[in-house]
């Protein structure tokens, strides 16, 4: 089974995507100057995955910071997931935010309003 693993840096998040378990995880900071380049492998991997997805796909997004250029790429990722969802496969996006981080909660809600995939907002302790 295919896997995608990208190790995090001070400006880019850790990404783990395991086709076998259907779990995609994006964790850390996403503030690169060139976010299209950074997210390209993930978008391409999702493209491949969409031809043979698991019945259940869990997406865990736990970001501390993300810049506006990443926000467009994250939307692209969610749009790929939306397409998989529309084909009758179950997708859940778990959006993690720190207890008092209203901006991050709001950012999750912005995506929730745009993308027709079930979102779960999950509060974590600091």
């Amino acid at each position, binding site marked *: 089974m295919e896997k995608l693993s990208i190790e995090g840096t*001070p*400006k880019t998040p850790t990404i783990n995507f395991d086709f076998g378990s259907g779990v995609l995880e994006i964790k850390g900071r996403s*503030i690169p*100057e*060139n*976010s*299209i*380049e950074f997210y390209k492998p993930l978008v391409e991997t999702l493209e491949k995955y969409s031809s043979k997805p698991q019945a259940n796909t869990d997406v865990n997004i736990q970001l501390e*910071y993300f*810049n*506006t*250029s*990443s*926000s*467009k*790429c994250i*939307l692209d990722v969610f749009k790929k997931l939306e397409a998989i969802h529309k084909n009758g496969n179950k997708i859940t996006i778990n959006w993690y935010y*720190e207890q*008092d*981080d*209203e*901006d991050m909660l*709001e950012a999750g809600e*912005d995506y929730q*309003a*745009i993308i027709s995939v079930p979102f779960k907002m999950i509060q974590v302790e*600091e």
Partner: protein
Amino acid sequence: MLDIYDFYDKMERNNIMLSFKGDVTSELLTSILQIMESKLDNMQEEPKVKRKVYNVLVECLQNLYHHMDEIDQNDKVAEKGRAAIFMIGRVDNQYNIITGNYVKSDNVNPLKGRIDTINSLSKEELKEYYKTVLNNGEMSQKGGGGLGFIDIARKSGEKLAYNFLPVDDRYSFFSLNIKIAQN
């Protein structure tokens, strides 16, 4: 001789924590962000405020960075064009993030129009505007997409204070002052 005390005094009065003038590179942004993050940690700034300051810093600095690309390298004023100034200070329970850079005079009115639009919107309207631009907006090759100023306005919760100073018949100096309240 350069009056360094005059600089010092001005910076002291405005409580400048960090300032920079020159070419904005990716490495520079990484360093500035690291320095500011540890300063905010050392000051034991509240996580909420710290996050807002950090977020707005990222957007302001990356605005400067991406703007550098637009300036014609072969231009006679290219050196001017590639330079920017940035400072962050804290006075009266408020962080001030100030940036300054040259813009082509032709771009002044469109830029002014964009900022004025953002400044005319309420908190809720800004949220809607952000979603519209996020979902429909064109994306530049590196991923900038006109969201920067909207995001800065949302995170800071304040109007964007700006100024355009004509320098010669082709260039103006654009300055932006973002305020972030400590409480």
